[in-house]
């Protein structure tokens, strides 16, 4: 698996550290309540198919990326800088 870093281009998987589902970008308010925080921290859609997850390009440009890929085939569809993907 190679990941297409928007800054560095296609790079080896070993340059990246995986964080998890891109839900980590949608941090709830501190007073959002137990259910919202449980959703954010623990519960996952965990899709068998297309997913969005966060990767850190530690051995490259040190950017955080949101990578779109397929968990069934390991096909990588695309990647954006997390700073731009965040809505």
């Amino acid at each position, binding site marked *: 698996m190679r990941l297409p870093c928007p800054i560095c281009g296609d790079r080896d998987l070993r340059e990246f550290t995986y964080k998890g589902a891109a839900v980590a970008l949608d941090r709830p308010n501190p007073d959002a309540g137990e259910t919202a925080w*449980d*959703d954010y*921290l*623990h519960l*996952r859609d965990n899709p068998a198919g297309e997913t969005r*997850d966060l990767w850190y390009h530690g051995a490259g440009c040190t950017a955080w990326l949101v990578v779109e890929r397929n*968990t*069934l085939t390991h096909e990588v569809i695309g990647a954006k800088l997390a700073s731009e993907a965040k809505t």
Partner: protein
Amino acid sequence: MGYSAWQILKNGLTGNKGWKPVWRDPDPKPEYDIVIIGGGGHGLSTAYYLAKEHGLKNIAVVEKGYIGGGNVGRNTTIVRANYFLPGNSEFYSHSLKLWEGLEQDFNYNAMMSQRGILNLFHSDGQRDAFARRGNAMINQGDDAELLDPAGVRKLVPYLNFDNPRFPIYGGLLHKRGGSARHDAVAWGYARGADQRGVDLLQNCEVTGIDIENGKVTGVQTTRGAIKAKKVGIVVAGRSGQVAAMAGMRLPIESHILQAFVSEGLKPCIDNVISFGMGHFYISQSDKGGLVFGGDLDFYASYAQRGNLPMQEHVMEAAMTLMPMIGKAKVLRSWGGIMDMTPDGSPIIDKTDTEGLYIDCGWCYGGFKAVPASGFAFAHLIAQDRPHETAAGFRLDRFRTGRGLMDEEGTGAQHNLH
């Protein structure tokens, strides 16, 4: 049918045409008291203990593939009770006791081999941690023995003791640990459940879970609708998808774990050896293949195959620990789907839907738990209260923060286990 030497000789001489299937292949009935979704090790043992320990008859196991075709047929077959935390410790202790009596219990040769598990350590700090773990195991009533380098050398002289980065300071030996024949475990439980009247429905994929007024009423499958008073979900690797049919989201990410088998070799590794610093462990199967593996690939995946960097890492760890392995050829490798929970411990609990139960989140340690997980899940389904050994495996522990079981001490967060 008996598996005597005479039967083997007779069938060997007559083209092996005399063997009969050891369980039925029934059509689904329209209704059961209990439907277990998932015919893997845990699902089969659940059905077996529901019938055997609780005297229940009207049970079906629905399996989308074939019996023994999932993770129970694709793992590294290690059995042990060397857990540290209360909650885990008594559960795995119970599981090992069930393993020790399993072959007599279901009258099937599971090739249970208590060849001993050796966990190596490489620093003074690690020795202290292992001594503490060993004491916890002894307090639980299990066995543990702290070996010095000479003791390890006597047991496994072929390791590289003087590696500059990871010199071997000793090991924690758990003599009652070992391995079992994974397929035979599935077959033994399947036959035992079938003999007690459980219908094993293969090629029967669940496509929906029927819920009315907050109560489960049955399942939709590719072989038709099946009504049920109680439904148990035990589908490691696909827990998220099946739970979604009941409107649930789980604290699980599916990850990939690779394992490897070498060509068949003469007996050379007598024990199970784990080299934690290299995330590496190895044993030798009775067929002669070296069975070994490493850590997760560390990204969510259902592909059932891993990537090359982790394969390279595992081979490097193997060479670091035992340079003699360099001459062996890798025969095959595979990747299994692991239900990873945030704290690395499993879930056996009721759900918010009445009559719906779930057993999931076994991370990369499901095989050794097969007997006790089935035993505890059967108890929960039959009696509507958790078995004492599995009372800590609560589904809500992440939401409440109470009763987290983080065996590695790294934090109860996805991607840390």
